[in-house]
């Protein structure tokens, strides 16, 4: 699997560290909403298809990246710097959970 770092170009996946699901919305640090914190820590979308995720180019320029990768085919459709980014694209519906 190759990931095209916007700074370094295409590099082998072994240069990168997976940092997990980028859909999760981190609550405001001052928030005391336990449900929101629990959902942030434990609940995942886990789609079979395009997945929005963070990777770090830890063996290269060390940038943090937001990657959209297909979990069935490993095809990567977008890579961008994660800086300035926040999980506003989140599609989660944690509130409706029982």
């Amino acid at each position, binding site marked *: *699997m190759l990931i095209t770092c916007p700074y370094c170009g295409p590099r082998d996946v072994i240069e990168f560290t*997976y940092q997990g699901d980028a859909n999760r919305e981190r609550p405001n640090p001052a928030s005391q909403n336990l449900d929101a914190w629990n959902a942030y820590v*434990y609940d995942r979308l886990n*789609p079979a298809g395009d997945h929005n995720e963070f990777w770090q180019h830890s063996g290269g320029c060390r940038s943090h990246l937001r990657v959209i990768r297909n979990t*069935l085919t490993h095809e990567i459709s977008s890579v961008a710097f994660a800086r300035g980014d926040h999980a506003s694209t989140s599609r989660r*519906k944690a509130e409706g*959970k029982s």
Partner: protein
Amino acid sequence: MAEYSAFSLLANALKGNKDWKPAWRKPDPKASYDVIIIGGGGHGLATAYYLAKEHGITNVAVLEKGWLGSGNVGRNTTAVRSNYLLPANTRFYEHSMKLWEDLSHDLNYNVMFSQRGCLNLAHTPAQFDDYARRGNAMRHLGVDAELMTPAEIKRLIPALDMSNTARFPVLGGLMQRRAGTARHDAVAWGYARGADRRGVDIVENCEVTGFLRDGDRITGVTTSRGDIRAKKVAVTVAGSTGRVMQLAGIETMPIESHVLQAFVTESLKPFIDTVVTFGMGHFYMSQSDKGGLVYGGDIDGYNSYAQRGNLPIVDEVMSEMLALFPGLARVRMLRSWGGVCDMSMDGSPIITTGPLPGMYLNCGWCYGGFKATPASGWCFAWTIAKDQPHEFNAPFTLDRFHRGHVIDDKGQGANPRLH
């Protein structure tokens, strides 16, 4: 009605083995059942078997989208052990071990359960202390565990690099003698036959595509072979849990799907007669009865539904194997494959009523659920039959995360790729 006996083997051998009956029927699905089990893996089949045998519930269908054994039950590396640290895990897996010890007899089907032992190697004094602590915790709950010295390990596994010049010299290990391996296909087939003979319909090539509902309540499923109603619907789909729960409108779960690879070498003469695990990385190995070395290591490390792996882990597993067994450098790898594991947020399974009325959920097996097959089915059958958990699976609820009662044996936190 013992179907496999010395007499039946002899009689069939003399008649050219032409009279064996199929191990299970191939029924068409009925319009409704008392219980539908989604997923014909080891856990789904064991659940059906114990529902019929322990609770007399036989109007049951197991729906499998592929063929029996096409999921993780036929892809795992067959290690069976109960060497956990936390009491909830130890009790549950030890219940499983006791069922394993009688399984071939109970099923009248040789699952080739072989108590060849499982040895965890320690490479630092801290790790050795940690194993001593785990061994003591096990012994407190009546599970066998013993610490081994380097000299004893050298006698047990002569091929291990026990020299001081090894990259990670071996300082000792924790052995569970009653642990071992079992023939994974036979486990699926034995439970399938046992359930079938008690009246359970095992329906292959039947994919569940959605749920029938009455308000919130689940009242059946839609499938590639039509709609089927049921009073109770149980989900045991291992690596597909996220997908199937989404069909029920549940978008998020404390689960991530990751791929785990396994490998087997060409057949060798007897080389190692125990299961051994490496303490400085993630590597484990045993030898199959056919002679191949069966081994594996870490998950690939990122969400994946692809039932195949990528090369970096192949490379890592091979180098860990050679760090322990330099003598295997020129042995050829015969096959490798991958399976999709439902990694939970604390590394422990979920066996629970709900999350919707009429539904029952069994998931979160990570890469360690084969050993759990008997207890998983036994506890899940109890939960379905009585609408409440048995004390062995009471701690393994879905809401434990939100209650703060996680069962995190390794202390890795809510990071599924580290469990």
